[in-house]
């Protein structure tokens, strides 16, 4: 019987870069990568506007 992993699997490079995030981005098409960036930018700008007075 296989023991369940004690910790979730992670994969970081020696300089601390999250390789799982890179592999996920590389699994997308360029058009999908652009959509990801656009959504992130929109979300960040929306949060900034909500907190504009702070």
């Amino acid at each position, binding site marked *: 019987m296989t023991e369940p992993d004690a910790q979730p699997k992670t994969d970081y490079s020696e300089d601390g*870069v999250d390789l799982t995030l*890179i592999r996920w*981005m*590389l*699994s997308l098409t360029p058009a999908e990568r652009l*959509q*990801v960036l656009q959504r992130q930018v929109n979300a960040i700008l929306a949060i900034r506007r909500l907190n504009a007075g702070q």
Partner: protein
Amino acid sequence: MPDSDFLAALRALHEGGVEFIVVGGLAAVLNGAPVNTFDLDIVPARDEANVAKLLHVLHTLDGIYRMQPERRLKPGASHLSSPGHHNLITNCGPLDVLGTIGHGLGYEDLLPHTIEMETGGGVRVRVLNLATIVRLKEELAGEKDLAVLPVLRRTLEEKQRGG
């Protein structure tokens, strides 16, 4: 300041027949690097015909210099024909028109180091390849360049492994 709409800006340039290369953070993202950016950086061809097309597109996008936006300064043909940098704000967000990047590399120098990519809705653009982005950032070695280099290097390695 208007929000960034990368695809709308790329579409306007593409449909305007402008010859340009996407560089900077957006080029890194299109190449698969998980980084963030808020502006679109392009290196256009600086011949007379292309500068005229670029000026027309910038006019339709209401492009003005981000510095002192209240003065609504617009770039002219002589500006865009120069190797300098033009930090603009348009109705699709910030757009940096860069005559050259790195140590004086212009459109013709960079063209062999680009790949054409579909970015959505039939908009195909030339994008600086990741190996060249990494090389230029290593050469410049500014704080901003050094901060993002680990992610770009690891992305390049994963791509070369077939990721």
